[in-house]
């Protein structure tokens, strides 16, 4: 068993050295493909963060002022909420609304102020405004919606009233455009990487056709012959994926550092990728890289065994 294992490793390494140029080409192509895939995923996530508050058809956000610490009268606050909700429910332009309480608002702040931890740390359960996320009826125009301000502004505890402006539409369109084209590009490049790995293995097998012929004639099993080639392809895919993960980590770090220096009102503070999301995407990239290598080499090693 040990001798077989050392044989597989030795043959895989020998094949790498013999096919260095093609191997490097396959690794670089798969790394670039996976990097683009990762960047697409990060950019999509950034856009999602930007518009997260406006998901589900929400076009109006009615902020409610935080409770005054000097006036801990919860009954008065509950009464104010009841009046706001009654007004929203009675308005024919409104289809539905949800109350975003303190926990919900703190969660939104985590996303929106990801690049500005100093400001985020100033927000607490006592001073963060809560809000109502309002979904208007179909066909309600922006001018009609503006009339909500007139209806709600005089009510107690009402803070800012925010409207989903055109930029939400723009962000969504840019997100769709960037997402689709970069995804197509990364799929094409991944396909090219699989073909390159396939070709590398085919070339390696052709270069060793005499050895393969001898192996078959002395009774080596097909799997014994295939495994070093398949391992070679798997390693190419995985090395490409590791390279892509490294580049992705570096790019994301530099982006995060850059965003922190942007002006507060740049609107890009939310486009920061948290480490959990980054880690989960790196795992996916490693899996895709390994799968691409295994598929490319597996097909080649099965198809060209009878040389």
């Amino acid at each position: 068993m040990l001798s077989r294992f050392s044989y597989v490793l030795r043959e895989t390494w020998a094949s790498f050295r013999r096919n260095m140029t093609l191997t490097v080409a396959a690794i670089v192509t798969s790394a670039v493909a996976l990097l683009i895939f990762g960047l697409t995923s990060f950019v999509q996530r950034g856009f999602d963060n930007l518009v997260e508050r406006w998901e589900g058809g929400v076009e109006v956000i009615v902020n409610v002022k935080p409770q005054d610490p000097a006036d801990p009268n919860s009954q008065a606050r509950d009464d104010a909420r009841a009046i706001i909700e009654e007004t929203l429910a009675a308005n024919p332009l409104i289809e539905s609304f949800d109350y975003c309480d303190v926990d919900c608002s703190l969660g939104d702040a985590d996303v929106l102020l990801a690049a500005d931890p100093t400001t985020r740390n100033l927000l607490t359960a006592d001073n963060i405004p809560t809000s109502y996320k309002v979904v208007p009826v179909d066909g309600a125009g922006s001018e009609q919606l503006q009339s909500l301000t007139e209806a709600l502004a005089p009510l107690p505890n009402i803070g800012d009233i925010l409207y989903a402006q055109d930029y939400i539409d723009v962000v969504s369109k840019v997100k769709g455009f960037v997402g689709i084209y970069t995804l197509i590009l990364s799929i094409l490049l991944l396909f090219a990487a699989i073909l390159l790995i396939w070709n590398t293995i085919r070339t390696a097998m052709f270069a060793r056709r005499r050895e393969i012929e001898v192996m078959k004639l002395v009774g080596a099993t097909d799997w014994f012959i295939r495994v070093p080639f398949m391992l070679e392809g798997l390693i190419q895919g995985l090395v490409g994926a590791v390279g892509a993960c490294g580049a992705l980590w570096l790019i994301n770090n530099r982006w995060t550092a850059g965003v922190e220096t942007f002006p507060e009102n740049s609107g890009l503070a939310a486009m920061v990728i948290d480490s959990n999301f980054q880690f989960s995407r790196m795992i996916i990239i490693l899996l895709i890289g390994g799968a691409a290598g295994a598929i490319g080499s597996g097909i080649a090693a099965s198809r060209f065994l009878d040389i």
Partner: protein
Amino acid sequence: MIRLENVTKQYGHDVVAVRDASFDVNKGEFVFLVGPSGSGKSTLLRLLNRQDRPEGGAVYVAGRNIVDMPSGRVPQLRRNIGNVFQDYKLLLNKTVFENIAFAQEVIGKPKHVIRQQVPAVLDLVGLAGKEERFPHQLSGGEQQRVSVARAFVNRPLILLADEPTGNLDPATGEGIMRLLDRINQIGTTVVMATHDQRIVNSMRKRVIQLDRGVIVRDQARGVYE
């Protein structure tokens, strides 16, 4: 040990390499397949180690019909068959020792067995002391001896030799024949394809003659006609 029953092998629609061939080879026998180029000698050898499959008939090796043998069992069959070729088929980037050890390594023989058996077989073929040489540092006869050693190192029941003296001068060819005869004396069945008249006549072994794929003569202690 070997039995062919009405074997026909065709390439494409109109090239019949072997037609309705039937014969038996007993354990420990030495058989020459003779005939001009294109008579079907090499095809018969390819049928015996399942490199090819016939369109009709049955090929029995060690009591098993190998025509319908599942692909997964073919490696096991081939571990009992050694092959020697006219062009040696040595691996040029491996030493003499490594070439022979390779045949054991790929079927999973442990290293300590390889270290023990390779020198023994090198001694048998008269190449002791040349373990570290590469094929290009050997003469044609020595390369063919390495090829024989590689074919014999796993102690096969059958040894198939396809024109093993075809690239060698007569004196060197005789040396190879003495080696094959010695391996046969140990108990290995040898089937050798050749059109070397001098060798066939000097050995006086069983001769099966082919002409355009048809067996035209099967003679014990025969000569080349």
